C-alpha cells in the first residue's frame, strides 16, 4: 500500500468535493460542474425523434433564441429522478448566448420554497409590479411563524372549498360539499370546528408541511410539494362532532366516515384547492400576482424574448399553475414570446401532460446511465463518467475553481503522480478530453472488474425498488460512499474492507472460497478475507496482480501462490461451447458455501433440488444384479426405498433424519459445491464432455475442473456401494427372505389336505393365504432372482442353491420383522395357526398311530389295503357290504392306502418338537389322512363282517351281542384274521 505515492489520493468526506445533486452547486461553481460533464444519452420524443447529444439540444434551443418568431418555445426535459435532467438544463444555461433582446429567468433546483422562488423570479424580472409582489409577499409571510401560516392556510383552504372548489369530474362533490344557502357546507364546515382545526394543524400532518414548504428550506432531490392524504382526514372518526354541525354537514360527515371512496374524493378536492388557498393567503386575489408580473415584463420586453429555465419545474410549488398558464400565451407585437426549457421527472410530466402537452414544442428524455457492457460506446461513456468524478475528487473543488479562474484547463491529478504507470497497470485508466487535450485518468481504487460489479450491485439494489441506475445514484454510491469507504480501509490497512465490499460486491461468484483462496492458506482470517474480496471483486476470482497487492497492502504471494498445473489431467478442460448458466440451485449452493453467516441454511428449494438430484444419480448407479437381487421386483424396490431416500442426503444438517435411511452428510465446503456442480452436470448432460456443443449449460468456473468427474463419480459410486452393501446385509445378516418365503410356501402347501380335521382347518386357511400371497413370490424373485438383460428385465432364473438352504429362522424373527415385515407377518400368522392346532393334532396323530398299530399290527398298510379291497369287492357283489353308500369312499381309500408311504415313527413327538418343519407338518397331515382312511376301512369291515355274520347267523339261527367297542376291536382283528386266511387261501 505504502509503496504507491500518496494513497489515498483524495480527501474525505468526498461529498464536500463531489456533488451528486447539481442543484446544490451555486452559479459560480460552474467549473466544478463542467469538470464532471459527460454526454448522457438523450432521446428526442417530440419535435423530432432519435438520439441527441447535449450540444444538439443546445443548438436547437439557441436557434429559437436567435429567431424572431412570436410563438412561444417550450422545451421539456424529462427522465427518471437523478438521471441528469437538471444537469442538462444547467449546462444549456451555461452555454447559451444571450443578447439584450433576451431576459433570462433561471430557477435552479436548490430554490424550491415559494418565497425563494418568487424572490428569485421577481428579482430577475424586475419592475414595479414585481417589486409590489415581493413587498406583498414579505407582508404575508415575512414575520409569521409556521404555526401561524398553517392556520392562515387552513382558513384559506376552507374558504376555497366553500366558495370556489374545483369539482370537475368528482361525482360525489355535492355529497362532500353540499350546497347551502350562501356557500358550500359539509367538509369545510367540519374543518372549521375547533377540535378538527387543532387536529389538522398538528405538526405531523400535511397542513404544517404546507406551511414549511412555503417558508422552509429545501432538503434536496426531486421533492414535490406536500400532498394531502387520507390520514389527514382522521378527524372524521372523532366523537361528538355532529352536535356542532348543521344537518347537511352532519350527513356529509357520516357519509365520509363510512365510505372510503368519498374520503378519497375529499382528499382530491382539498389538494385541488391548495394553490388557490396559498394565493388567498398571499393576498394575490386583490393585489399583484405572478401572472400580472409576467404580463408586465412581457409587455416591457416586446420585440425581445423572455427566457425561462427551470432546473425542476416540479419544485416550483404553488405558482406552477400561473407559470403553465403563461406558456399558453404566445407573443405578439406588444408582448414578448417565451423561450422556456424546464426539467421534470417522467411521472410529473405524465401528470401534467393534459395541461401542457399542447404547449410543449420539444420534448427530450435523458436516459438512465447505460449498463450494457457489450456496447463499447456505452461502456466508454460510463467509464468516462466515473473517471471525471474520480479526478474531481482527487483534484478538489477549490483547485478546480482556482484553475478555472486563472483561465487554465481542468487539472488531471494522475499526470502529476509518480506512481502513475504502476497504478494504471494495476487498475486501468480512461482517456478524457480536457480543453481539447486527451488526458488519462486512473480508475484507482476501482478497476474495470470492480466497476462492473459495483454497477451491477447498484442496479440490483435499484431494481428492488423498481428504479434504474441514474447518474445521481452512481455518484452517491460509487464515488461518494465508495471513496469514503476505500479511504477508511486504506488508512486502516484493511483494504478491501467489508464496507468497501458493500459497494462493489454484486453477489456473483462462480468458485468456492477455498478455490479462490488457493495459495493463500496459512494467513490469518482477516488477511484471507481481504485477499478473497480482492480476488473476487477486483480480479474476477483470479489471483491479484503485483500492483493490486501492493496498492491494497496485501502480501505478495510470489510463485508459491500460483496454482500448480494439474498433475493428472485425463482430458484438459476445453472452452465451454454454450453460455447458458447452471441451474439455480447450483448458484444457491455456491452462495451458501461462500456465505459469511455460519448459521445460514441452504435455501429450502435448492436443498430439496440437490437431494433429489443425488438420490436420482445414486439410484441409477446401484447395481444389485451381481448379488442375484432383481432390482425391478417389488420387494427389492421396497427394501431400496427403505434404505435410500431424499433424507439420506443432508447438506449442512438439512433434511429430516430417518433412522431407517442411510445417511450421507455433505458439509458446507467447497467440496460440496464441486460435487453439486458435477452432479448437476452429469444429470443434465449424461457425459463428462465439458466442451460439448450439446451441453445444457456452461460449466461454472472451477479450479482443476478436470478432477470433477473423478470427485463426482467416486462419490456416487461410493454411495451406491454403501447402499448395495446395506441391501445385501439386510438379506444375509438375518434370515434369508427368499429362503424363508420359499420354505413358508412349501410348508403351507404341505399343510393343505383334503377333508382336514376340524382343528386343522385354521391351518389350512392360513396355508391357503400364504400360497396365494404375491408377497411370497415377490420375495423369492426379488432376492434369489438372476436378472439377465437389464435392471428392468424379468427374472431369468432362480438361485435355487440359496432357496435350498432351508433357513431355520433361529433368533432371526426380529430381523425378519424389521427388514421384511410382510413376509414376517405371513410367517407369524401361519405359525400361530399351526401352534394352535398342534396339541390336538399331536393327540390325533398319536391316536391314529395307535389305531394303526393295533389294527394293522405287523401287516403293512399296502398289504391290508390289497386284501380289504378284494374282500370288500366280494361283499359288495354278494350284497352285504355295509354301509352300502360308503362303498365308493371305501374303494378310493383302499386305492390310496395301497400306495401309501409308511409314516415315520415317532411322528407325534417330532411334530411337537419341530412344529415349523415343513416335512413334519406334511407327515402329520399325511398321517391324519391315512388314519382317516384306516378308520373308514375298519368301520366298513366291521359293519360288513357283522352283516355277513348276521346272514350266517340267520342261516344258523342266532345273534352274538357284544359291546360296540369290543365289536370294533374284535371284528377288526377277526376281519384282519379273516383277510389273512383269505390271503392264504388266495395264495394256495
Amino acid at each position, binding site marked *: 500500500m505504502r509503496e504507491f505515492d500518496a494513497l489515498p489520493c483524495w480527501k474525505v468526506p468526498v461529498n464536500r468535493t463531489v456533488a451528486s445533486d447539481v442543484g446544490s452547486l451555486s452559479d459560480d461553481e460552474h467549473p466544478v460542474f463542467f469538470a464532471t460533464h459527460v454526454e448522457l444519452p438523450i432521446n428526442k420524443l417530440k419535435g423530432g425523434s432519435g438520439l441527441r447529444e447535449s450540444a444538439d439540444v443546445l443548438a436547437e434551443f439557441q436557434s429559437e433564441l436567435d429567431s424572431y418568431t412570436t410563438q412561444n418555445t417550450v422545451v421539456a426535459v424529462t427522465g427518471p429522478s437523478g438521471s441528469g435532467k437538471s444537469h442538462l438544463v444547467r449546462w444549456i444555461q451555461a452555454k447559451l448566448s444571450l443578447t439584450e433582446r433576451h431576459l433570462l429567468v433561471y430557477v435552479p433546483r436548490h430554490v424550491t420554497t415559494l418565497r425563494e422562488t418568487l424572490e428569485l423570479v421577481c428579482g430577475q424580472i424586475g419592475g414595479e409590479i414585481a417589486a409590489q409582489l415581493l413587498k406583498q409577499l414579505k407582508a404575508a409571510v415575512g414575520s409569521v411563524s409556521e404555526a401561524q401560516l398553517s392556520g392562515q392556510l387552513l382558513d384559506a383552504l376552507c374558504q376555497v372549498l366553500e366558495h370556489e372548489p374545483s369539482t370537475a369530474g368528482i361525482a360525489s362533490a355535492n355529497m362532500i360539499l353540499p350546497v347551502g344557502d350562501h356557500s358550500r357546507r359539509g367538509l369545510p364546515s367540519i374543518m372549521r370546528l375547533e377540535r378538527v382545526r387543532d387536529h389538522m394543524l398538528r405538526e405531523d400532518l400535511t397542513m404544517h408541511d404546507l406551511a414549511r414548504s412555503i417558508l422552509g428550506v429545501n432538503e434536496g432531490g426531486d421533492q414535490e410539494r406536500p400532498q394531502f392524504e387520507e390520514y389527514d382526514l382522521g378527524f372524521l372518526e372523532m366523537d361528538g362532532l355532529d352536535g356542532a354541525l348543521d344537518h347537511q354537514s352532519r350527513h356529509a360527515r357520516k357519509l365520509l366516515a363510512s365510505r372510503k371512496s368519498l374520503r378519497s374524493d375529499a382528499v382530491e378536492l382539498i389538494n385541488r384547492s391548495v394553490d388557490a388557498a396559498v394565493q388567498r393567503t398571499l393576498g394575490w386575489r386583490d393585489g399583484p400576482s405572478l401572472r400580472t408580473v409576467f404580463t408586465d415584463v412581457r409587455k416591457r420586453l416586446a420585440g425581445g424574448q423572455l427566457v425561462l429555465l427551470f432546473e425542476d419545474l416540479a419544485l416550483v410549488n404553488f405558482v406552477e399553475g400561473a407559470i403553465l398558464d403563461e406558456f399558453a400565451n404566445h407573443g405578439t407585437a406588444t408582448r414578448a414570446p417565451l423561450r422556456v426549457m424546464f426539467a421534470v421527472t417522467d411521472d410529473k410530466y405524465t401528470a401534467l401532460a393534459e395541461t401542457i402537452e399542447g404547449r410543449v414544442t420539444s420534448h427530450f428524455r435523458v436516459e438512465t446511465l447505460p449498463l450494457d457492457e457489450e456496447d463499447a460506446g456505452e461502456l466508454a461513456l460510463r467509464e468516462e463518467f466515473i473517471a471525471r468524478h474520480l479526478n474531481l475528487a482527487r483534484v478538489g473543488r477549490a483547485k478546480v475553481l482556482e484553475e478555472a479562474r486563472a483561465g487554465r484547463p481542468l487539472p488531471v491529478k494522475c499526470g502529476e503522480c509518480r506512481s502513475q504507470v504502476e497504478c494504471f497497470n494495476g487498475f486501468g485508466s480512461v482517456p478524457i478530453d480536457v480543453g481539447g487535450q486527451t488526458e488519462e485518468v486512473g480508475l484507482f481504487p476501482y478497476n474495470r472488474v470492480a466497476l462492473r460489479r459495483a454497477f451491477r450491485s447498484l442496479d440490483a439494489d435499484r431494481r428492488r425498488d423498481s428504479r434504474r441506475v441514474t447518474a445521481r445514484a452512481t455518484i452517491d454510491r460509487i464515488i461518494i460512499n465508495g471513496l469514503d469507504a476505500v479511504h477508511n480501509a486504506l488508512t486502516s490497512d484493511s483494504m478491501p474492507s467489508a464496507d468497501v465490499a458493500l459497494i462493489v460486491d454484486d453477489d456473483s461468484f462462480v468458485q468456492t472460497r477455498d478455490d479462490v483462496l488457493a495459495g493463500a492458506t496459512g494467513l490469518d482470517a482477516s488477511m484471507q478475507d481481504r485477499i478473497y474480496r480482492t480476488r473476487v471483486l477486483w480480479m474476477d476470482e483470479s489471483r491479484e496482480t503485483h500492483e493490486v497487492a501492493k496498492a491494497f497492502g496485501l502480501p505478495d504471494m510470489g510463485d508459491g501462490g500460483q496454482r500448480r498445473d494439474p*498433475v*493428472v*489431467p*485425463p*482430458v*484438459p478442460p*476445453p472452452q465451454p461451447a454454450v453460455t447458458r448458466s447452471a441451474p439455480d440451485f447450483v448458484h444457491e449452493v455456491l452462495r451458501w458455501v461462500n456465505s459469511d453467516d455460519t448459521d445460514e441454511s441452504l435455501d429450502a428449494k435448492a436443498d430439496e433440488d440437490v437431494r433429489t438430484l443425488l438420490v436420482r444419480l445414486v439410484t441409477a*448407479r446401484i*447395481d444389485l*444384479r*451381481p*448379488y*442375484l437381487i432383481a432390482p425391478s421386483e417389488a420387494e427389492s424396490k421396497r427394501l431400496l426405498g427403505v434404505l435410500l431416500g431424499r433424507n439420506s442426503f443432508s447438506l449442512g444438517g438439512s433434511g429430516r433424519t430417518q433412522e431407517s435411511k442411510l445417511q450421507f452428510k455433505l458439509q458446507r465446503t467447497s467440496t460440496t459445491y464441486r460435487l453439486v456442480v458435477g452432479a448437476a452436470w452429469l444429470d443434465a448432460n*449424461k*457425459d*463428462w*464432455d465439458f466442451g*460439448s456443443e450439446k451441453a445444457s449449460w456452461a460449466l461454472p468456473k472451477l479450479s482443476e475442473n478436470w*478432477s470433477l*468427474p*473423478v*470427485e463426482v*463419480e*467416486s462419490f456416487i*459410486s*461410493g454411495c451406491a456401494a454403501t447402499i448395495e452393501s446395506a441391501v445385501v446385509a439386510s438379506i444375509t445378516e438375518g434370515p434369508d427372505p427368499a429362503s424363508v418365503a420359499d420354505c413358508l*410356501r412349501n410348508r403351507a402347501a404341505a399343510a393343505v389336505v383334503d377333508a382336514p380335521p376340524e382343528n386343522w382347518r385354521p391351518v389350512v386357511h392360513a396355508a391357503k393365504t400364504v400360497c396365494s400371497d404375491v408377497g411370497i*413370490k415377490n420375495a*423369492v*424373485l426379488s432376492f434369489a432372482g*438372476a*436378472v*439377465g*438383460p*437389464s435392471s428392468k428385465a424379468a427374472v*431369468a*432364473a*432362480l*438361485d*435355487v*442353491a*440359496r432357496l*435350498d438352504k432351508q433357513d431355520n429362522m433361529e433368533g432371526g424373527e426380529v430381523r425378519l420383522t424389521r427388514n421384511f415385515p410382510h413376509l414376517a407377518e405371513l410367517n407369524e400368522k401361519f405359525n400361530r395357526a399351526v401352534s394352535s392346532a398342534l396339541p390336538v393334532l399331536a393327540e390325533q396323530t398319536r391316536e391314529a398311530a395307535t389305531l394303526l398299530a393295533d389294527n394293522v399290527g405287523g401287516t403293512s398298510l399296502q398289504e391290508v389295503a390289497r386284501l380289504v379291497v378284494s374282500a370288500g369287492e366280494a361283499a359288495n357283489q354278494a350284497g352285504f357290504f355295509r354301509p352300502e353308500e360308503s362303498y365308493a369312499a371305501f374303494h378310493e381309500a383302499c386305492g390310496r392306502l395301497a400306495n401309501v408311504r409308511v409314516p415315520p415313527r415317532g411322528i407325534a413327538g417330532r411334530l411337537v418338537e419341530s412344529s415349523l418343519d415343513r416335512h413334519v407338518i406334511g407327515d402329520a397331515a399325511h398321517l391324519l389322512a391315512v388314519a382317516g382312511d384306516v378308520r373308514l376301512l375298519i368301520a366298513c369291515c366291521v359293519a360288513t363282517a357283522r352283516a355277513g355274520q348276521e346272514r350266517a347267523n340267520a342261516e344258523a339261527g342266532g345273534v352274538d351281542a357284544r359291546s360296540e367297542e369290543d365289536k370294533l376291536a374284535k371284528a377288526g382283528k377277526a376281519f384282519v384274521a379273516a383277510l389273512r386266511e383269505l390271503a392264504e387261501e388266495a395264495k394256495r
Partner: protein
Amino acid sequence: MTTKKILGSPQANLPTMRVAARAIHWFGPMSSEDLRERLRPREYFDEPSSAIDETLTVADWLGLLHEDDSAQPKLKLGSELSNADSWFNSPSEFALTVLQRLFSEPKGTEIAELIPWFLAQDWRREVDWSHDEFARERIMNPTQANAFFDRWMVPLGLAKMSGKSPDPMKTISWLLPSLSGRYSGVAFVDRLGASLPTGPGHRLALALAVNEDAPQPGEVFSSVAFALLQLERSGRIRLIRADDAAGRDRLIFRNLADGGYTNVTHVEVDNA
C-alpha cells in the same frame, strides 16, 4: 473371422450363468433338462426362458460348464470353477473367472476383441459403436450392442453409467486384493494387464491394432487412468508422484487432447 459369436446369443448373461453354476455345485451334476426345471420352478414361473438355454450355450463355449459323455449326459462344472470356495459366494470372483475365460478361449470371442477397443474409447461420453468400423464388424445390430454393453461390460466391471462409457474401475478394484504392495507405475499396469487390457501396448490391443500410433511403455488408456484416479480418491490405492523418477517409469495416459503424460511413477496398494 473364426471367433465365436457370443453376441449371437444375446440373452446369455452372467447372473444366470452364476446361478446355474451354483445349482450344479450345490445339487451335483444334473441333466440340462433337470437344471432348466430347477432354475425356473413351475410354482414361480409360467413359461420357459430362452435366457437359460443361451446362457448354458455360452457357458459351454467358455468351458465353464460342460456335459459328460455318459448315456444320459449330465452338466458338470468346468475346471475353472472347480474351486467353488473362491466364486460360489463372490460375484466379483465369478466375473473375473468369466473375464479370464473370455481372453483364454483359444478360438477367441468377439467380446474379447471388443474389450480393448471399448477401453480405448473416450471415457467422457457414450461410445458410438455404429460409426466405428471395428465395432460394426463384431456388433451386428442394436440388440447385440445392448447385450455387449449391458450384459457383458457392466457385469464384468468395465463400464458404468449407461454401460456405454468405458470405466474399468470395478474390475481393477476386484483385482486389487491380489496386488498388495508398492509397484512402479509400469509394473503395476503390467500386473493388471494379466487380466485386463490396460493400454495400447497390451497384447490384446496390439493384436487388434486399436491405435494408430506406436504405444510407449507405461501408456494406459484414459479410461484406465480415470479408473485409477477414482480408486485413489476412494483410498484403495495411492498414486505416487515422484518428481525425480525416470521418465520410463511414469504412466502415460492415452487419448489426451494434448498428448500429455503424468508423473505418476509408483502405485501403492494397501489392502489392509
